[in-house]
């Protein structure tokens, strides 16, 4: 599973990255987490409000930092 955090490096992007890493560790997922800071790449996902979370090339969340439980929910279906 491939997870990308889109964000130019603002405080919320860092929060999202931390929360995602925690969720991945808790769920025991085998996932590669990548940070995308390049504006052109971020925009190419159609995202305009950062930060955004991309799972297997699909934008699942953007524009806010969700609670840890919500990230776990978003990542869990992929394990099933």
């Amino acid at each position, binding site marked *: 599973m491939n997870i990308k955090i889109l964000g*130019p490096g603002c405080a919320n992007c860092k929060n999202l990255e931390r929360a995602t890493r925690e969720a991945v560790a808790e769920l025991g997922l085998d996932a590669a987490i990548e940070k995308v800071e390049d504006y*052109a790449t971020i*925009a190419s*996902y159609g995202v*305009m*409000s950062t930060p955004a979370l991309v799972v297997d090339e699909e*934008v699942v969340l*953007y524009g806010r930092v969700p609670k840890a439980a919500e990230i776990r929910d978003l990542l869990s279906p992929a394990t099933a």
Partner: protein
Amino acid sequence: MSLLDRLLETRRGRGLTLVTATAVWFGVYFLNEHLWDWVLYDGFGMDPEARLTGTIHFFFYDSIKIALLLVIIIFVVTYLRSYMSVERTRALLGGKREGVGNVMAAGLGVVTPFCSCSAVPAFIGFVSAGVPIGVTLSFLVASPMVNEIAIGMLLTLFGVKITAIYVGAGLIIAILAGWILGRMGVQKWVEPFVFETKLRCKPVDPSRALTFDDRVTMGIEEVGTVLRKIWPYLLVGIGLGALIHGWVPTEFFTTYAGAGSTFGVLIAIGIGIPLYSNAAGVMPLVQVLFEKGLPMGTLLAFMMAVVALSLPEMILLRRVLKPQLLAAYVAVVGTGIVIVGYLFNFLLA
């Protein structure tokens, strides 16, 4: 788990918390002035007429008042804005011609939740979806210039008329600035990579399925986030306001920057541009300067210069705009602000 967390677990607990919070808010708001009267005059035996007392009283009273107002304003604004998103705005603007597009973009710029840190992805996203550059620029000018928090503060501190002037003037500047820049054929001054950006997957769904509880939670969190971010600016602004309130004689401003003053507006803008603060931070200052007799046109120009033309945002936009376009942007918006300043000094005099 803290008591608050447990209360927020259930619907009834949340309602109870909201009611209690509202009651506390009103209590503190109405006791605020009396509290500081009592502490300073009775507690410390300070002379109510002395300048130092006035300054200290203003600082504490205003800090609490502005903080309380901000809590309500940020909460309401975030709740309402949760119905909009930059993605939805882009969908609305797609395929719009210049002219109509500029008007819509400026209006949407006011209501769309937008942080200047997203200015670059938003610019690329708009342009790659076929929104004309001028229309995109109208959005980018209106978004910081007509700030909802400023609207809320102006409404409570100055009333409907001044607020309407601020919103109207800001919208007109954004519409015209975007339209003029679009007419200038500025395509060639946009970094080429913007046009090469292709959407690799379907655009994200703009309708974020949020529940009422989600929106309320977002509102509460935003209050915390914004207050944590802006409190230093706020305290500096209130501190300056308190000093001016206590020590600067009214004649000083009316003599050097009154409504008839030739350079008052230009000086205000010159001071406003490098001031990297935010709408909430300059409001206490604007309030005091108004009491001291500074005309409203000059103050509006000052406020707009602080929020609409900031160096950090220019540095961000430099990623997508070439220096020529950036210079034109600052020149057009700056000219608009100067005109607003002089016009309203004249009209409101």
